[in-house]
């Protein structure tokens, strides 16, 4: 965490109330975003997103597995985020775990939808190979290399890019099997299926500092926040998920206002 002097704090808060931030941005302006895909050749899909000094990598690996007994026609997706100590020394050992779990859960909620799988950004039925027996398990891993605020947005963007970069190998299923036997599958090295990622939402985090809210906070601004709302919005403008962080309570009207701002910014 950055140590800010009283003067600096006043400066940040004062500036924000006058629509001027530390790096001369407006309240609702994002930092320049750089996206690079295909950086990890061993993974099925990968992407690196740089948002100012925040740097995250997401990678997608797919493995064949057995689908959930309750949902035999759906594949499984697991999202896991890891805050590495390279991002900040306090993340060594167990230090980063709390933040990691918080981010993982928030991302799962936004991208994967509810328990029943309804409303998810990725259609899990597209992951099934043989109904009830074989499906693809997607493991999405996020790695935070450098943290300068607004990790959630960067991670969501990286995951979206990585998934669009993912190629799931084509699978040929051998002759029909009966009963509980596992069918033979032939994983093709050559052909790949691309994912349809137009449904995957993007997360916009609005951070409240004083009476105003800003988009894409740096770590200094985040240290001054009273609360933050992360809204996940997809291409059609539907809200897919909502996460609120921070201790201060928010008026309902403010929340609605923030949501509309998020849609607009997106």
């Amino acid at each position, binding site marked *: 965490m950055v140590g800010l002097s009283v003067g600096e704090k006043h400066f940040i808060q004062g500036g924000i109330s006058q629509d001027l931030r530390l790096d001369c941005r407006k309240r609702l302006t994002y930092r320049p975003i750089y996206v690079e895909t295909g950086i990890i050749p061993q993974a099925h899909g990968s992407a690196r997103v740089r948002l100012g*000094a925040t*740097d995250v*990598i997401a990678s997608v690996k797919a493995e064949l597995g057995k689908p959930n007994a309750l949902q035999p026609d759906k594949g499984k997706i697991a999202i896991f985020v890891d805050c590495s100590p*390279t991002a900040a020394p306090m993340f060594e050992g167990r230090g980063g775990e709390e933040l990691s779990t918080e981010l993982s859960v928030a991302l799962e909620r936004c991208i994967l939808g509810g328990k029943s799988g309804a409303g998810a950004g990725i259609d899990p039925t597209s992951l099934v190979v043989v109904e009830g027996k074989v499906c693809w398990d997607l493991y999405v891993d996020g*790695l935070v290399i*450098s943290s300068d605020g607004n990790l959630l947005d960067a991670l969501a963007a990286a995951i979206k890019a990585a998934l669009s970069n993912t190629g799931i190998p084509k699978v040929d299923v051998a002759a029909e099997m009966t009963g509980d036997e596992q069918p033979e599958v032939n994983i093709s090295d050559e052909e790949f299926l691309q994912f349809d990622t137009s449904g995957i939402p993007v997360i916009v985090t609005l951070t409240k500092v004083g009476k105003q809210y800003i988009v894409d906070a740096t770590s200094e601004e985040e240290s001054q926040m009273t609360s933050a709302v992360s809204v996940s919005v997809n291409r059609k403008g539907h809200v897919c998920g909502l996460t609120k962080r921070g201790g201060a309570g928010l008026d309902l009207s403010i929340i609605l206002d923030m949501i509309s701002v998020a849609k607009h910014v997106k």
Partner: protein
Amino acid sequence: MSKTEYVSPEGLRLDGRRPMEMRQLRAEIGTVAKANGSAVFEMGNTKVIAAVYGPREFSCWFVVDDECNSVFQVQNRSQQLNDQALAVNGDITCHPPDHGGVHFDSSNASFSGTRSACINAATLALADAGIPMRDIVTSCSAGYLNSTPLLDLNYIEDSAGGPDVTVGILPKLDKVTLLQMEAKLPVDIFENVMGLAVEGCKAVANYIKEMLWKDEDDALLKQALALSMNIPGSDSSVGDAEMSEATNDQELAMGMSCYLFVVLTYLEFLCHMDGLHNCGSHVGLKFYYLAKSYQSSITKELNMLALQMFMLNGSIDQSEESDVSKVLGDQSFMPSIISSELTQM
């Protein structure tokens, strides 16, 4: 499962390399903006990110010997060997309460190739952070499959279960800091394989040097590297009056002495001045050689004069003067250092 040919009859390996060929190296420094020093090192498909943070308060273990060696806490997810490899190199003189933390992230498989890449990345990150080091540490692995010594094993070759020798060296001092082997190997073949690995390390060292020298902006880094890596033009072994002439660039000498100043203020060398010439090619030493070369006497006052003289010598050149005075003026450590040294003595 049939026996896989790791080396084809024509002498090509699985990925098309020759047995003595290394994988493609790629290095980049300054990747983690928030870290004091950081680097990415890629050997083929293995990619390692290293970041250095410091100085910080340390909690427990600290090794102090007469050369005031550092403590270097290395956090590594899977392999603790890097710790030892670096610690031997890490004659990083710091003020006792300081220590640096080096963190690694390897975003690919974990096998011996990762270890080498980690060490190389760490070296680069430390250099990027500007930590004074005796020498860089480079590392490479070699193995023996199908009766051929192979340099720089990739994942498939490493999983084959054949012997695998990982070597870490200090290129300038020509010393081995890390040596590790898995599986069995007859001794005479071992010599070949280890020799091959050392050659690989030297190739990595050359690559790293080239890469760091290209970084034009960081003049101070270059000077520090010039000292540590024995670049011709800054002959470090002799350490005489020739130093300033040998470095064609007066600014280089000036910058170096300023840099050394910062290092030296933290050392207790002043108490051990007589024993200095026994300590070997420590970076801090060279400065004293310099100072001594201008004055034959060892008394403190004259040494101070020597320091001052040396500083002034450099500022004769007009173009450099502004830089020197900027450095001196900014820090204003000159008077404070001299007074502190006087009081310590």
